[in-house]
């Protein structure tokens, strides 16, 4: 299956794009998508402890399963206001 990965702020800068398509095995979790991304871009790895994630624009957890066509977003600590 294929998912759309969205990255924001410093994560987007580190990878050089805010949106990419990645293949994931059936039954993969958000955490597996992140692990695949870190394998590709090791500079993301320090963020593992501080990021949040979302699936289809709703907050999610690393343990949640993703489905074909899902939009999986990784969010560094927020700083609005």
């Amino acid at each position, binding site marked *: 299956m294929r998912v759309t990965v*969205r990255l*924001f*702020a*410093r994560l987007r*800068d580190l990878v050089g794009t805010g949106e990419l398509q990645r293949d994931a095995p059936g039954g993969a979790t958000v955490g597996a998508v992140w692990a695949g991304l870190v394998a590709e871009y090791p500079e993301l790895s320090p963020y593992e402890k*501080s*990021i*949040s994630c*979302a699936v289809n*624009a*709703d*907050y999610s957890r690393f343990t949640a399963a993703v489905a074909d066509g899902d939009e999986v*977003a990784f*969010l*560094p*600590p*927020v*700083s*609005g*206001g």
Partner: protein
Amino acid sequence: MVSLTAITTTMLDTGALVRALDTTGIGAVTTFIGLVRDHNLGRRVLHLEYEAYEALAVKGLDRIVSESLEQWPSVRIAIHHRIGRMEIGDASVAIAAASPHRGEAFAASRYAIERIKQIVPIWKHEYFEGGDVWIEGATADPDNTEARAQALKIACA
């Protein structure tokens, strides 16, 4: 009709936000406006660029409105956050809260800005004299009850 919550690239209009609130039975309206400050952590700030995950950020603002209603059932609240490039003195966030008595309006307004900083996916990119940096605050987790309790404590202090 102005919506009660919005992420926008245009200048914020606090008056429009107040007019968007139903003021039936209301005795007090507070407004809070967050501005781009000319200094941060000893740095001279030149300008800011705000970025958002818009679809989730609007849901975050809606959630804060619901949480406020849960806490203060008589309060009506509207929240708009601007994104994109902003200069010193520009308004980045505006909150209007209306209630029968002033205490709840002040409290709900303070609660809303504290929660924005905790759970709404918006990021500041600070351009200062000598460089630029992404500002990173709280790890967003709307279900973190400790964070929510902390925001409530600050609001009711």
